[in-house]
């Protein structure tokens, strides 16, 4: 019985970690065709901003977390303008050289990967130069709940709730609002969307900003429970990529499903054989999933639906 509760809590924990790690990346990758290898560093920005806002400026934790998300979102928009779309450098070069110098990185998967890897090197090393090898951490709020001879951090359970809330909010934003419709129209067919009066340039910018803000929020939420080092983003990167790829083309649903499946595998194997085997099991499961479902879980669901429609 106690072990069952343990397992359930560990599952919630893994689920929250995977979903939060993947959310920002999934939007940027799924919607814009940009592989953001600096995703971990966006999380880093969120975590550092939150921690510094709380410890240096003395803001309440919740406010500091919002600040962390907003700052990362703004940073994301600047990144999009300067690097991903190259709009600002091109604006300058149009006036000085009379031509564009940068071709947008949309749907250039490999190039976007290399460019954002350069950005991640700069950010990690920049953080190390500016703040040193670690900064003071905020203490974990809410204390712990205990049952039997075990105790568990309440904050971890709150994280699981927040991750579900974020999924619902993102799903609502992209499927039920006017903005979401324009964004999805831009992804599906840029030219037609433009012809229908959608400002696709602005859509890309805002989508990237939202994805970055989600990554920043992830960093903000995890700031009290992970150690504040310049390389803290790395621990999220792997789970994020695995979840996005296993999830497949449907961004929000895919992230939720792969978070559930991979979280369950991680929890079960960690519980039985320790965290190391848990991690290996997660990665092996991802390899196997890709081998048999090259389009991811949601791609597989779409295929099944299509087949059913055809047979009717």
């Amino acid at each position, binding site marked *: 019985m106690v072990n069952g509760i343990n397992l359930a809590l560990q599952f919630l924990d893994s689920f929250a970690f995977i979903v939060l790690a993947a959310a920002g990346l999934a939007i940027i990758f799924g919607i814009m065709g940009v*592989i953001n*290898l600096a995703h971990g560093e966006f999380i880093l920005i969120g975590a550092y901003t939150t921690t510094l806002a709380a410890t240096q400026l003395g803001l309440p934790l919740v406010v500091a977390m919002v600040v962390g998300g907003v700052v990362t979102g703004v940073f994301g928009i600047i990144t999009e303008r300067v*690097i991903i779309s*190259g709009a600002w*450098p091109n604006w300058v070069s149009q006036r000085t050289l009379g031509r564009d*110098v*940068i*071709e947008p*990185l949309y749907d*250039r*998967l*490999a*190039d976007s*990967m*290399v*460019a954002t*890897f*350069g*950005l*991640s*090197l*700069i950010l*990690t*090393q*920049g953080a*190390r*130069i500016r703040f040193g090898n670690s900064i003071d951490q905020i203490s974990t709020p809410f204390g712990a709940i205990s049952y039997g001879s075990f105790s568990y951090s309440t904050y971890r359970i709150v994280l699981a709730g927040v991750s579900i809330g974020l999924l619902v909010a993102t799903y609502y934003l992209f499927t039920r609002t006017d903005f979401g419709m324009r964004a999805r129209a831009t992804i599906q067919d840029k030219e037609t969307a433009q012809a229908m009066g959608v400002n696709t340039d602005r859509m890309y910018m805002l989508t990237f900003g939202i994805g970055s803000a989600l990554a920043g929020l992830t960093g903000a939420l995890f700031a009290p429970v992970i150690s504040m080092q310049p390389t803290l983003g*790395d621990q999220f*990167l*792997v789970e994020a*990529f*695995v979840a996005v*790829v296993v999830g497949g083309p449907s961004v929000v649903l895919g992230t939720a499903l792969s978070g559930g499946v991979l979280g369950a595998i991680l929890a079960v194997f960690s519980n039985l054989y320790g965290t*190391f085997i848990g*991690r*290996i099991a997660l*990665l*092996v499961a*991802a*390899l196997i999933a*890709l*081998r*048999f479902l*090259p389009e991811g879980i949601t791609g597989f669901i779409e295929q099944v639906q299509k087949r059913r429609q055809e047979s009717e």
Partner: protein
Amino acid sequence: MSTNSANGEANSSLLGRLRSPFEGPNTIGESRGFWVGFLVAVAALVVYPVFGDGSQLSLFMILALLGLSLSLVWGYSGVLSFGQVVFFGIGAYTFGVVSINFATPGGITAAVVAGIVGGGVSAAILGYFMFYGGVRDVYVTIITLVSTIVMHTFMAQTAGSEWAIGEAALGGFNGMPDIPLLTLGVEGASYQFIYNPFPMRIIGIGAFEISPFYYLVLVLLVGTYLALRVLVNSDYGRVMVAIREDEDRTEMFGYNVTRVKFIVFTLGGALAGLSGVLYAARNVYIDPTVFSLLFATLPVIWVSIGGRKSLLGAAVATLAVEYLRISMAGELALVLLGTLLLVTILVLPDGVVPWVHQRIVTARIGPGEDNGPNVPETSSEVSD
């Protein structure tokens, strides 16, 4: 292969016939000037140990082999692999394990072969799993990235004494020290390449020592470069490039796309394995940092900066970037490397070496003709 004489040079001359297998639309450099420059560059590398640090340059040349393996797999066949370091590391570890267990000249020679085969076989297994499973494009990239991380996680926890193969302990983060010195041959007729410098004396320069290992690596690098040029300019190479440009269309023409990708990936793995063997032999040591995320991305950086569709670019950029990385020791090194990478990929997405080549060709033939008939204009391609 009569289309090669882009400059109208007589193809029937002996030199022309000698050169023709190395030339074609898939590599840059098909003029006499290029080959003269090439020989000058090789000659410069031959005499370099007299003036500079040959030991360091031998490391860079070993890594250039790794860069070439990625250029072959990514630049010519369109498979972006973050896993070249997996095959590199497996090659290095295999060499270490076999040579520690059989520390005789024959055993060490066999260890070299085992390392190369190890790299190739591991690439074949992963490649079979991916390509015959229908995994494509960016998903291949992610799988190779995940494989790298699996290897890193796995090797890092092999510190315990139960993780030993024969007499070779894998050693976890501490790595595997005491790899025997590289010796090729059999008992009685063998030659030791590492820590066996022979002294030389040249009037006017003075006495110095040169390492035979440096020349072994140089020969392997130049040989590999030329062999890959032959490969990518052969009919097989044309199929590889066709797959890079449009996989479905190549399949329509009746080529077995899956098999070509599988074979090229295996070949790239074996080449990375060779590079790993030399790396372990040079350092007489190997540890799991070769599987780390930073090391896994380095080949992608070299090849992107140099120009991924150019073997020469991959090799030259490896030497240049590694030299910069080592010489810019200090805090700002990684910031500068990141900036360099970012600016290169944004401003020159095709890489530096093809851009320089384009300038030279334009300066010689004049603008407007810089795309010869052999170079397909990508923008004129019919979109589907």
